[in-house]
């Protein structure tokens, strides 16, 4: 298919450009911003496959991000080579998904969302209680710290996530997920194993979120142990995916670019009230881009013929 070939081509170009970038740009600020960007793309796209494609709104991604970070940090600082530590982080996140996430998938609608949010919050409090201090990088880790290395680590994680997710959503599995999202009952009647698709989405999502968490742990020299469990890690990926377009592949990427840019501008120019303004912009974005930047033209068309029967293509039925 021409479109797919074109996509791969563009993607390959992008990867090549990003891979070669540190040869020309080595400034700490630039590389850090790019690492942040890659991190956000990864976490957002991971959220997107579960929330946008499979329709399971996970509001507790911080728990998975956090556990990936925690596992990686502990293993790495105790001698494990960082690639293994990061991958272990990914698996610890999947383990969390298996223990708590899969049972939670039985919850419908907003109960899954509440459940995951409360989970993240509880995780935050628990870690805050058990490990209230700061994790520091010691001696040799500091001496051998290379920002460029971390740039490539985040780049690799992001590419792995994007490639995997691209392949999945464009396959039959992706169709199964979308069928599950659009109408679970109809999908089941059509023979779609909705449990299987939810589980696949959740596994992929948690794995890459865990990897991203591992990247975080590898990146920061020192941070409060509970930081990667913070609520912002729940909401930012959702907002980012939102801005770009939920359920689209390119959405999280566009969203992440806009978000990182905006956040930097605000932080640099607004000082004390920057979070207040941020909150306002946050809300305005949702008010004016309910389907993301991508969905804008379609959204305007839809608003005309609907009255009470709900969003585009929804079957008539109880809420």
């Amino acid at each position, binding site marked *: 298919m021409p479109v797919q070939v074109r996509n791969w081509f563009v993607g390959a170009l992008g990867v090549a450009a990003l891979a070669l970038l540190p040869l020309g740009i080595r400034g700490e600020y630039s590389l850090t911003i790019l690492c942040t960007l890659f991190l956000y793309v990864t976490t957002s796209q991971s959220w997107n496959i579960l929330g946008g494609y499979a329709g399971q709104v996970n509001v507790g991604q911080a728990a998975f991000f956090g556990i990936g970070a925690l596992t990686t940090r502990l293993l790495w600082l105790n001698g494990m080579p960082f690639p293994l530590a990061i991958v272990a982080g990914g698996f610890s996140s999947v383990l969390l998904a298996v223990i708590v996430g899969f049972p939670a998938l039985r919850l419908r609608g907003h109960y899954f969302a509440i459940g995951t949010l409360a989970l993240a919050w509880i995780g935050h409090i628990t870690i805050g209680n058990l490990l209230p201090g700061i994790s520091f990088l010691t001696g040799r880790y500091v001496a051998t710290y290379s920002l460029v290395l971390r740039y490539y680590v985040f780049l690799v994680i992001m590419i792995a996530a994007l490639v995997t997710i691209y392949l999945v959503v464009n396959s039959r599995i992706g169709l199964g997920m979308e069928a599950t999202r659009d109408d679970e009952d109809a999908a089941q009647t059509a023979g779609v194993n909705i449990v299987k698709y939810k589980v696949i989405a959740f596994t992929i999502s948690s794995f890459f979120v865990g990897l991203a968490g591992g990247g975080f742990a590898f990146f920061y020299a020192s941070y409060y142990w509970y930081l990667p469990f913070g609520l912002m890690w729940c909401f930012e990926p959702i907002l980012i995916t939102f801005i770009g377009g939920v359920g689209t592949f390119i959405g999280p990427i566009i969203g992440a670019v806009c978000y990182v840019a905006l956040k930097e501008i605000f932080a640099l120019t607004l000082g004390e009230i920057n979070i207040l303004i941020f909150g306002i912009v946050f809300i305005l974005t949702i008010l004016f881009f309910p389907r993301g930047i991508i969905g804008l033209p379609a959204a305007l*068309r*839809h608003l*005309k*013929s*609907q*009255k*009470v*029967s709900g969003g*585009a*293509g929804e079957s*008539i039925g*109880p809420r």
Partner: protein
Amino acid sequence: MLELSGLDIYHGDLQALWGVSLTVRDREITTLIGSNGAGKSTTLMAITGLLRPSKGSILFDGTRIDKLAAHKIVELGISMVPEGRRLFPEMSVRQNLEIGAFIGKARRAKYETMDWIYEIFPILKARAEQQASTLSGGEQQMLAIGRALMSQPKLLLVDELSLGLAPVVVEKISDVLKEINKSRGIGIFLVEQNVQMALELADIGYIIENGRIVGQGEAEALLESEEVKEAYLGIA
């Protein structure tokens, strides 16, 4: 009493109805028949105000209702028995009936109306305190009709009466509908896949196919017509 003229209706981007026009006369039983997905339920949703037509108009006793809010349409005297019953599952039989009499004038006559419903559907009285979700299909259909009647409508819309019900039950309910039409003069607009039953019950029939009206006439005549017999009754 009810006039639909040139209705075009969309579900999102898909057009479901094309220039649909029909008339439901006072005190009569009118039916709209067609196969699954032909646009029958869509028509009802437009009448009740749950969907807004993008073209055309709906007049009820001379008043335009296609732009009115759904609850106002109920106040004007149109009530619907939804497809699949759609009872309030957590409420009891009695509570479902009571909420049916939500609008002002119906509220004041609530207990008389309920007595009447219990008369025409005695089984509901027996199960008055039972939770709606525990009733059988036929009982649920009776409750759905009873609930719709609680608002004291002039026109009762019925969406797919026969769906999922045994023929014996369908016949019984069909008789009840005929009875309330005769005794209380309540107009009935029945949307149905079961052509035989619908045309036997109704006075006037319309046929809809792929979102367009393709035939109309006296129900008896339609029942006898060759086209209907072939297309819907399987008689060659």
